[in-house]
């Protein structure tokens, strides 16, 4: 134990140094944002009003948090109890994801002091209005879904019971809200047919955003389990992850098939013959989705932790590439300009991600997020039934 501990220490120090450096640059960028406005802290312009903070922080942040609603639906609504052990980490990630999205928006929006305006000044014709409401409501739902973990930690049984009583409608609401929210991030871009490059602009953007969010949610679950098993020295629930990988392979196949049909019906395949940046970015995005999907169909890959991890990382990257293409690169030509984020935009983004990792770690260490670290799964299951009446299996 001590030997192991000593081995871990220098590694942590390096990471801590990087962590501190990121936060420091983030703090300076924050100072620039507050005192010199968006002009002093970003490379945005009148022709290119949205950049990294929307393209990555918001669009990827929300998507990466999609594991929460996917697993809530699988475990609690479809009653596939075997996925229970990864449910709580997924909810925690989702909650943190949304928290970071909200923080990211505070940076991006020109008047963060008016963030509450959409809640009182309505315009139901606006997708942004819907997004604002979904973020607010879903963060609340996630908070409530996360509360039992806190109550359990402090042994508060009364509120625990109370929360469980409303939990079913709450979960259904949560799944619906994220369905709306994930797809409406795609709907946002339906209003720019003349700007978004036709490899990405399609009337079914909302559907594509929804399906890919499910995919990335599952991939993130594998990704997290792998990391938390290392960080907290837990055994990897390999059979469980392998079965999630199966679902992931199917979801990604459906996604890729819809994208194929979409290009086919829009007669857009000819675009791939053009030697343009967009073509290459598109091919990269598709390759990053295609390769892990094909690999995950082989049980040899699914049973190999490293390969499984590698595949999930590729799916996550493919997702990020897609969101950045829709939100940034695919818009450059149509907007008649180029955009490269300023260092301070990158610093803020990295800080938010780093803070997310740190909070996850702290909560993972101090709250009962990971349920299955006991060696006797049978025992755990009975315990669960006691604390969580919903866990009827």
């Amino acid at each position: 134990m001590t030997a192991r501990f000593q081995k871990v220490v220098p590694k942590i120090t390096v990471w801590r140094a990087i962590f501190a450096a990121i936060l420091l640059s983030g703090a300076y960028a924050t100072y620039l944002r507050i005192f010199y406005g968006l002009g002093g802290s970003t490379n945005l312009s009148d022709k290119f009003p949205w950049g990294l903070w929307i393209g990555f922080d918001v669009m990827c942040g929300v998507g990466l948090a999609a594991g929460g609603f996917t697993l809530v639906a699988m475990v609690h609504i479809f009653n596939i109890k075997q996925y229970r052990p990864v449910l709580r980490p997924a909810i925690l990630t989702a909650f943190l994801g949304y928290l970071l999205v909200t923080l990211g928006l505070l940076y991006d929006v020109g008047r963060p002091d008016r963030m509450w305006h959409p809640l009182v000044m309505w315009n139901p014709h606006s997708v942004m209005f819907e997004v604002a409401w979904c973020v607010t409501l879903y963060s609340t739902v996630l908070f409530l879904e996360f509360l039992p973990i806190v109550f359990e930690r402090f042994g508060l049984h009364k509120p625990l019971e109370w929360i469980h009583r409303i939990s079913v409608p709450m979960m259904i609401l949560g799944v619906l809200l994220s369905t709306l929210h994930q797809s409406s991030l795609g709907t946002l871009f339906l209003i720019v047919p003349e700007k978004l490059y036709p490899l990405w602009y399609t009337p079914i953007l909302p559907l594509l955003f929804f399906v890919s969010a499910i995919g990335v949610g599952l991939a993130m679950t594998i990704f997290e389990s792998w990391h938390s098993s290392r960080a907290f020295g837990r055994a990897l629930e390999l059979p469980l992850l392998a079965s999630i990988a199966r679902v992931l392979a199917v979801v990604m196949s459906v996604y890729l098939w819809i994208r194929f049909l979409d290009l086919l019906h829009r007669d857009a395949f000819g675009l791939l013959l053009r030697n343009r940046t967009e073509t290459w970015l598109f091919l990269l995005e598709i390759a990053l989705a295609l390769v892990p999907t094909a690999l995950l169909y082989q049980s040899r890959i699914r049973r190999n932790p490293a390969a499984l991890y590698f595949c999930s990382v590729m799916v996550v990257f493919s997702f990020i590439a897609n969101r950045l293409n829709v939100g940034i690169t695919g818009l450059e030509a149509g907007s008649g300009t180029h955009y490269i984020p300023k260092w301070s935009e990158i610093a803020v983004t990295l800080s938010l991600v780093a803070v997310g990792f740190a909070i996850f770690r702290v909560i993972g260490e101090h709250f009962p997020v990971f349920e299955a670290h006991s060696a006797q799964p049978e025992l755990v299951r009975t315990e669960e039934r006691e604390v969580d009446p919903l866990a009827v299996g």
Partner: protein
Amino acid sequence: MPKAILYDSTLCIGCRACEGACAERWGLPYNDKIAAEETISAHKLTTIVTHGDHFCRRLCMNCLQPACASVCPVGALQKTALGPVTYDAAKCIGCRYCMQACPFQVPTYEWSSRLPRMRKCDMCSVRQSAGKLTACAEICPTGATSNGERDALIAEARTRLAAKPDQYYQKIYGLSEVGGTSVFFLSAVPFEQIGLRMNLPRESMPMLTWRVLELLPDVVSTGSVLLGGIWWITNRRAEVARKEGPRK
């Protein structure tokens, strides 16, 4: 009756009087340096752009079905019955969706301000409600920019096209672009040669998102029933299993 602006590029001599009048109406500085900037920005809401021998003007098109107003989450932008698309800076949260959505890339932002606002031409909403002409139309020495009732201006444009068929490219820009605008352009050459965007949909832009948004109540209600139902079925199975469990 809704108002409109007609800009006739063949009559424009590039004197930039409209730029100065616009700056004055908004209380913005105007000098030779700003006059030389041929882009619209938060401190210059209209501009004359030189395209070889021809001039073109850039200003908010005050669309009939404005994309900007439809996407604004707080309803800061409104299409008024009189024609102008107005902006209420007190509501604006600065999400800049209007800038992203506008097919003409008109809205601009006060990037370096700590309390920034979106800025755009509002077709002199206040002046027009008081029965006055827009500042740009009032000052224009050649009549290249004129202001009046929308129908009358369309008729006037058609008369000009018919009277001098060899001097005009035989189209009116703004009649059908994005479902129609309140600013029209006439030109001697095809519109793309004076920098006007041609790849625009003919239908109203807000429909593109509304088609999806209007499904929302249906999705929510159907989804609740479906998910609730699935939960009920799967947990019924679980209940049965639990009752039978101990007997085994």
